[in-house]
């Protein structure tokens, strides 16, 4: 584990003191759930453990990749949070040796700067860094990639009464620009391997049944159903420099069940094009709301 990561863990552990916890990503009547592939627009104390996915790559023959990841987010202040994430990768391809190991660990800094409650609008900005060399050499990049990112979320609760059944809809999105720490490195044969720059887009369209039941119309649905949010996400990467590859991405249709202290999400992974993957994969996530589980210790900002 590298020094920046050790420092962050030490900081997280040092935050064990009692102070009221703060909210999830809440704007007015809208609670933006923690979606799997699109970071929600708020800052919060939360833990995703585990996030598990499996899919086939676009290689020929296709390799089966399975990932086991985690992410821990910790608020520094009410509007500022840091994060650390890691993923264990397992790749098996017919006729080749199975590759296993950690991908590069990630660090993030996120600042929430806008909430408009009546219009259920929320915005944040952040900087994410994939720390080069922190993962297994055969799996992870040797260089660091910095991705400044813009996050937003908009609930449709301000629609007129005539469109009230559309009010449970919300959209969230991330826009980032991935910048490698170096343009290229030289391989063992003396050839340059170029490090791509890329635009990264992700988004989610969600229909909140909890919102429908509490703010629009209670249809008397079973309690389990009233905790569901059907969702469709997408994630796209478009190289802008140092790459011969084209745009790749996936669609992720699925559903989130939200409880008081945790949520569970499950989505299919559908490649957008042949370069993005082969066939349909799957991703599931167990996500904990630390501000509700540990409101006086780990689930509150370090500085208030």
């Amino acid at each position, binding site marked *: 584990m590298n020094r920046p990561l050790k420092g962050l863990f030490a900081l997280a552990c040092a935050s064990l003191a009692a102070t*009221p916890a703060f909210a999830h990503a809440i704007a007015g009547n809208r609670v933006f759930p923690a979606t799997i592939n699109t970071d929600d627009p708020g800052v919060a104390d939360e833990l995703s453990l585990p996030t598990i996915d499996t899919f086939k790559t676009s290689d020929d023959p296709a390799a089966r990749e399975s990932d086991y990841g985690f992410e821990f987010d910790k608020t520094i202040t009410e509007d500022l949070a840091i994060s650390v994430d890691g993923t264990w990768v397992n790749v098996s391809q017919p006729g080749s040796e199975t590759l296993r190991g950690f991908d590069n660990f990630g660090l993030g800094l996120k600042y929430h700067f806008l909430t408009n409650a009546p219009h259920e609008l929320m915005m944040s900005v952040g900087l994410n860094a994939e720390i080069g060399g922190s993962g297994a050499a055969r799996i992870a990049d040797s260089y660091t990639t910095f991705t400044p990112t813009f996050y937003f979320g908009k609930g449709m609760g301000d629609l007129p009464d005539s469109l009230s059944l559309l009010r449970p809809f919300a959209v969230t999105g991330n826009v980032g620009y991935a910048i490698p720490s170096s343009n290229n490195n030289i391989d063992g044969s003396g050839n340059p391997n170029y490090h791509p720059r890329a635009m990264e887009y992700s988004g989610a369209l969600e229909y909140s049944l909890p919102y429908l039941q509490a703010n*629009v*119309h209670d249809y008397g649905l079973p309690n389990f159903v009233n905790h569901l949010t059907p969702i469709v996400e997408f994630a796209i990467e478009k190289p802008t420099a140092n790459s011969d590859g084209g745009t790749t991405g996936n669609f992720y249709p699925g559903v989130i069940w939200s409880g008081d*202290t945790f949520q569970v999400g499950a989505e299919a992974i559908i490649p957008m094009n042949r370069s993005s993957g082969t066939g349909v994969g799957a991703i599931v996530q167990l996500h904990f709301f630390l501000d*509700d589980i540990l409101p006086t210790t780990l689930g509150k900002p370090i500085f208030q």
Partner: protein
Amino acid sequence: MKKYLILTLLAGLTAASPAFAHAQLQKADPAAGSMPSAPVAHVDLYYSEELEPHFSKAVLADENGKPVEAVSEVDPKDAKHLVLTPRTPLESGTFRVEWHAVSVDTHKTQGSFQFMVMP
């Protein structure tokens, strides 16, 4: 050993007491979007968590947005229950409830809904 530690951590997190959580509206009577028959003497709001009485409140307005005089009170016998009592029972029309709740661990939530009283 590592697997047991992770499973223990997850079990502990999932089994954590729900007493520390955001107060979500679980049920209302009249319910959101409902059309109860007149008169409606009070509006009952039931939450997932206990509320801080001094910081949790609901207000009532008519279809024009004009406030309707009503008393908002957290049930002293059930801190998950907030009662909104109009000065006079509601006889007809569309009414809007807006509520703000603070759970006992200081988390804030809010919501609003409409119902139509049928004469």
